[in-house]
């Protein structure tokens, strides 16, 4: 909006056209850089000011989520300091490192809380949080992230399930391979034990199969997982 100051007379060696093109380019770049600096500073300060609160609410959110699958009465240790790191594990469907929380009561192993990914949802991955008790059965299962069709496949998330009295996902509470053997751990449409909604089988199948695979994996690795020192990386 402002015209560049005219400095042509002082530099007769450069032709006016070249000089002004370079001048305009540099000047414009400088203005753009100034705006970038100001607004990056704005974003950086917003980040700096909010980071502690964001981290605290993420932690609280995680604890709240864990509380949904594992009642606080079940354990008396600090889950966040008694966690171990799982490498990407195909049986859990994870493609990056995840944390596994070990719940203990009076020093005795009580339950494991960990993340599982169902890779074959109707529209992409479905992330699940599982609590498996030390004695064997699955305690509870919740969907933490999904992109299933609203109003159709999203009943796997109890918040969206229209059956408020007995949401679909609660079928997986307190159930293990002793009551539903591994070959029955499928949706009814596949000849298994678990219900699904007609017309939206894929989401239910993905969750059911992923939880079955995870439970089988935990049954093999349970004691080793509890024995590992806190904060170490698990190796199969």
């Amino acid at each position, binding site marked *: 909006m402002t015209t560049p100051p005219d400095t042509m007379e002082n530099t007769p060696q450069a032709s006016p056209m070249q000089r002004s093109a370079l001048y305009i380019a540099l000047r414009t770049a400088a203005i753009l850089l100034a705006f970038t600096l100001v607004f990056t500073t704005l974003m950086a300060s917003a980040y700096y000011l909010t980071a502690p609160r964001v981290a605290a609410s993420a932690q609280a959110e995680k604890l709240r989520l864990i509380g949904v699958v594992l009642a606080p009465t079940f354990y008396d240790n600090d889950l966040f300091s008694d966690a171990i790191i799982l490498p990407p594990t195909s049986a859990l469907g994870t493609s990056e490192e995840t944390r596994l929380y070990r719940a203990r009561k009076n020093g005795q192993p009580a339950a494991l809380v960990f993340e599982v990914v169902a890779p074959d949802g109707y529209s992409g991955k479905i992330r699940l949080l599982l609590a498996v008790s030390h004695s064997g059965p699955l305690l509870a299962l919740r969907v933490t992230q999904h992109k299933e069709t609203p*109003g159709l496949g999203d009943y796997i998330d109890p918040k969206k399930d229209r059956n408020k009295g007995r949401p679909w996902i609660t079928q997986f509470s307190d159930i293990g391979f002793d009551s539903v053997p591994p070959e029955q751990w499928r949706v009814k449409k596949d000849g298994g034990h678990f219900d699904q909604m007609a017309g939206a089988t894929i989401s239910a199948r993905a969750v059911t199969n992923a939880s079955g695979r995870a439970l089988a994996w935990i049954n093999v690795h349970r004691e080793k997982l509890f024995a590992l020192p806190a904060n170490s990386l698990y190796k199969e």
Partner: protein
Amino acid sequence: MSAFNDIAKNGFWKQNPLLVQLLGLCPLLAISTSLVNAVSLGLATILVMLLANLAIASLRALIPYEIRIPVFVLIIAALVTVVDLSFNAFLHDLYLVLGIFIPLIVTNCIVLARVEAFAAKNGLAASTLDGVMMGAGFLWVIALIGGLREFIGQGTLFSGIEMIFPSLSGIQVLPADYPGFLIMMLPPGAFFTLGLLIAGRNWSEARANQRRLNQLKQAEHPGDKPAENIPPFAA
């Protein structure tokens, strides 16, 4: 004062971002699956449009015309980032509902369009009002579409409101065994609904024009009968 009236009317109806300018279709498709989602995104959009128009109107003297677009994009993206972070930190419950939608506001061309078409050329007060009114125009249309899609698609209204107000819960409007109407919940449903609303708006505008025309004729030739039976699209 009439200038401010015009700004309000433009945002709400005459130049409505969704019905007339057809801007902001990306968030419309993604979010208008339920009334609560739609209203939430609409409110967040109003906030961002207010901030963006305010920022550009106050900085416009410093922004060279030739590089205004990169600067506008930079400012809008920075503001959305700040809004996103602040919601996460200070309004965490609301953020859990809106969180995934806020970054989508960057993709809403209406923000850039108003900055470019209005805030870059007008004063602070007018630009702020324009941002709010254009945002409000976006809000009421996306809310209407969200409500219609939720009602026809799922037979409910206000589902998900418990995430914002835990004491309330959604209403099952149609019988609980209503099978749903899937296509309304999928993106095509948003296009169908928007198309019908645009058609409705065009129809009512055409009728109003026809009426005005008839009144003019009436004034010129008081003896003539008003041409009432001309269909709205005849001209």
